[in-house]
């Protein structure tokens, strides 16, 4: 499972991309976020408020209920401000 962080999530966590092997309990985005938060204070802080960030699974928008198989590319980022 490849995880990408953008903008302030990347800055707070301190890494833009990481490959992880999530434990068996991680079956959707919600359980992934809960597991990531336990990896340290930077994760806890960056992922504290699920209203503050968006998620994409394999480059499509997802939400907390999006199911994960384990080999996805998952990205966390703030609301977009392009244009």
């Amino acid at each position, binding site marked *: 499972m490849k995880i990408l962080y953008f903008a302030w999530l990347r800055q707070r966590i301190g890494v833009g991309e990481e490959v992880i092997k999530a434990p068996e309990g991680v079956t959707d985005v919600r359980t992934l976020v809960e597991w990531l938060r336990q990896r340290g204070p930077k994760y806890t802080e960056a992922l504290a408020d699920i209203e503050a960030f968006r998620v994409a699974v394999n*480059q499509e928008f997802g939400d907390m209920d999006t199911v994960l198989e384990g080999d996805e590319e998952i990205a966390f980022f*703030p609301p977009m*401000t*392009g244009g």
Partner: protein
Amino acid sequence: MTIRVQQKDFDVGAELDALSAGNTNVGGVTSFTGLVRDIVGSSQSRGGAMTLEHYPGMTEKMLVEIDAEAQSRWPLEASLIIHRYGRLEPGDRIVLVAAASAHRAAAFEACEFLIDWLKTKAPFWKLEETADGEADWVEARDSDDRAAQRWNSNG
């Protein structure tokens, strides 16, 4: 359709010419160019530049989807989205969207749709340099959400 995500600047005149070149079905071309603002001397002045970060791969994918949605909603002869990333100075061009159609109403609506959806659906983030040498991530605006949503559903 033309979709490009690039660091370098673009030539608005050449890009718009290309939209109607050789196609005399085109009666009108509407374009929107977004520029880096800097309200010099005002309380909103940030003194400068910004850096645009994006999600390579997903950005192009979303722009293709946004363009396809515009093509499905309006009878377009051609369309264009160019978005820059990297560090940009005040006055620099950020984005160009354009739509060419037989009639002007379709060209206007499609062009505004392209930029409204791009603002809320394409994974770009702006980091603005502040006067004190720091940098702040620009916050998404409710007005942009409302602008995108007025194109209904899927919004």
